[in-house]
C-alpha cells in the first residue's frame, strides 16, 4: 500500500517537474536548461515576498509566478531569440543563464541557513492504513488538475491550439498567420510558470536549496527523454515509470540507489527505444 501511494505521489511530483520543460521543448524545440533555475527562483521570490516584504502567502505565490513568467519571457525575448536555431548556442546560453541565476542565488541568499515555505495545510491523514500529510495530497491534486487544465488549454483555446500547431509544424503554422516568435515567448513564459507552480507546491515539503535546481533539471530531462521529448502523454507515463521505479528501489535496495534510477532509465530507453516511449518517427530521425 505504502509503495502504491508514495509511488503515485512521487510520480506526480516528477510529472510536475517535467511539464514546463516538455512544453517549451515541444513548442519551440528549445531545450530550456534554465528550467531548474526558474524553479528555485520562484521558491526564493515567494519566500522573499512573504518574509521580507510581508505579503500574504497566496498573494506572494501569485506574484512570484508572475515574476517567473516574466523572467522566462524576457530570457527568450532578449537572449535566446538572437541565437534561435543554433542548437549548440541555445543549449549553452540557456544553461549559462540558469547557472547565473542559481549560483547568483546561492551567493546572494541561499547560503547556509535553511529557508522554507510553509505547507498550505498542516497535518496528515490516514489513507488505507498509510499516513500521508495534506501537502502531499495537495501535490497530487494540483498535479492532476494542472494536467487537466493544460489539456483543455491546448485543445480548446485558440492560443493553445496555436501552440500545438507550432509544435507540430512551425512553417505550416507560420503560413497560417501564427507569429512564431510570439508563440515561443508565450511558451517560454508558460513553461516558466509551470516550473514555478511545481516549485510552490513542492518546496513546502523540504527546504529551498540551490541543489534542487539541478535535481529538477535532471529529473525533468530524464522524464522527457524516457517519454520521448515533446510528447505529453509520454512524459506523464515516464513520470509514473520512473516514479515507481524510484520508490521500489528505495524500499528494496535502499535510498542510496535512488539517484541511479534516472540514469539507468535513460540509458535503457536509449538503447532499446531511442525515440522514447511515445516518440514518433520524425523524432527518431532527428535524434539518432
Amino acid at each position: 500500500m505504502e509503495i502504491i501511494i508514495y509511488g503515485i505521489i512521487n510520480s506526480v511530483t516528477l510529472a510536475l517537474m517535467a511539464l514546463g520543460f516538455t512544453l517549451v521543448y515541444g513548442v519551440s524545440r528549445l531545450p530550456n536548461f534554465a528550467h531548474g533555475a526558474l524553479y528555485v527562483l520562484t521558491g526564493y521570490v515567494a519566500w522573499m515576498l512573504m518574509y521580507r516584504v510581508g505579503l500574504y502567502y497566496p498573494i506572494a505565490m501569485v506574484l512570484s509566478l508572475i515574476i517567473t513568467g516574466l523572467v522566462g519571457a524576457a530570457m527568450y525575448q532578449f537572449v535566446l531569440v538572437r541565437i534561435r536555431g543554433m542548437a549548440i548556442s541555445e543549449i549553452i546560453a540557456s544553461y549559462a543563464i540558469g547557472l547565473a541565476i542559481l549560483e547568483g542565488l546561492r551567493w546572494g541568499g541561499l547560503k547556509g541557513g535553511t529557508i522554507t515555505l510553509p505547507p498550505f495545510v498542516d497535518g496528515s491523514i490516514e489513507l488505507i492504513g498509510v499516513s500521508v500529510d495534506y501537502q502531499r495530497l495537495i501535490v497530487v491534486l494540483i498535479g492532476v488538475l494542472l494536467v487537466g487544465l493544460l489539456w483543455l488549454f491546448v485543445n480548446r483555446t485558440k492560443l493553445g491550439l496555436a501552440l500545438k500547431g507550432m509544435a507540430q509544424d512551425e512553417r505550416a503554422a507560420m503560413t497560417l498567420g501564427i507569429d512564431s516568435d510570439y508563440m515561443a515567448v508565450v511558451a517560454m513564459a508558460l513553461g516558466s510558470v509551470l516550473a514555478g507552480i511545481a516549485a510552490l507546491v513542492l518546496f513546502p515539503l523540504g527546504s529551498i536549496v540551490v541543489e534542487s535546481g539541478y535535481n529538477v533539471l535532471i529529473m525533468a530531462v530524464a522524464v522527457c527523454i524516457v517519454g520521448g521529448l515533446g510528447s505529453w502523454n509520454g512524459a506523464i507515463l515516464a513520470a509514473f515509470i520512473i516514479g515507481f521505479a524510484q520508490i521500489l528501489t528505495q524500499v528494496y535496495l535502499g535510498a542510496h540507489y535512488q539517484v541511479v534510477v534516472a540514469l539507468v532509465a535513460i540509458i535503457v530507453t536509449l538503447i532499446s527505444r531511442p525515440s522514447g516511449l511515445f516518440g514518433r518517427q520524425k523524432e527518431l530521425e532527428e535524434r539518432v
Partner: protein
Amino acid sequence: MSEPAKDRRKERLDRGIKVRTDGIYAISHWTEIAYLLTPRLLFIVGLLLAPVILIPFPYWQRVLSIVCIFALLAISFDFLANYVGLVSLGGALYMGVGGYSAALLNSHFGLPPLVTVPVSTVLGGAICTVLLLPCLPLRGVYFAIVSLMFPLLAGRIIEALDVFGGTDGIMGVDGFSSGWVEQYVLICSVLAAVFILRRMVSEDVGLVFTGVKDNDQAVKASGINITTYKAFGVFISSMLGCLGGACLAHIYMWAGISQFALDFSIIPIAATVVGGGGTLIGSVIGCIILVPISEFLRDFGTLRIAVYAIILTAFIVFKSEGIMMYGTRKYEQFERWVRI
C-alpha cells in the same frame, strides 16, 4: 560597433601579405616568413617561457598550472563540439574520472606521478568512452542533456555508495617532484594537444569527424560507422580531460567529489566561446583570460560561476565569433566602407 549606414557596407579584403603567404611565396622574403611565424611563435614561446617569467610570483605559477588544466578541458570541449558535433556539458566527468584513477593508482599501487598521469589518461579516456557509449547515437541537444547528468550523478553515486573514500575523497596522493615538472608537463601537454589536434582535423579522419557533425546520414551512406567515429572522438577528448584531472589530483595531492564540480564543466565552455569555437587555440586563449579572473573572484565563492555564466551569455549573443576569430580577421584582412 555602430550600425552601418544604409547606402554603404563594409568590405573585407585579404591583406597582400596574407595572400602571398598562402602559396609558395611564403618563403621568398623574411617579412613573409615573419608574418606566418610571429603569431605561432608568440604563442608557443610565450607559453614555454611563462613559468620562468613568473618565478617571482610562485602563486601565479600555480595559477598557470590551473590555466593549463582548464585549457586541456577547453580544447577537449572545443574539439568534441566543433569538430565531432557532440556538445558535452559534462567536462567535469573527465576531470573526475582522471583524478580518481590517478589518485587510486598512486595510493593503492604506489606508482609515481609520471607513470600515473599517462596511464590514467588512457585508462580514464577508455572509462569515459564506455560510460558515454550508450548515449553516442544521440545528436546534439540530446547528447548535451545526458552528458550534463553524468558528473552530477557520478558525484552523488560516490557519496551515496561511499566508495573511493566517500565524501572525504582520496588523500595522501603524491605531488609532482617539483613545480617545474608540474608546469612543463602541463604546458607541453597543452602545446602537444593543440598541435596534434590541429593537424588531425585536416587529415582524412578529421574530414570524417566533420562529416559526422554536418551530415551524419551522408557519412552513414558512405558505409562508415558513425558511432565508431563518435566513440573515437569522445575517446580523444576524454583523454585530454582525464590528463587534466590526473594532473590536478597530483597538484592538490587529493582527489574528491569536488572534481566533479560544475566549475570544470562551465569554465572550459566559457573559455571556448570567449576564445572562439572551432579554432582550438582560441580555447587556450580563453582560458588564459578567464582563469586568472576566476582567481581574482575567489573571495566571492560561487559568484564566479555566475560571472562566468554572464560573460558566456554575453559573448554567445553579442560576439559569437570569439576573440581568436576576431584577431585572425584583423590580422589577415583589412576593412573599408564601400558605396553600394
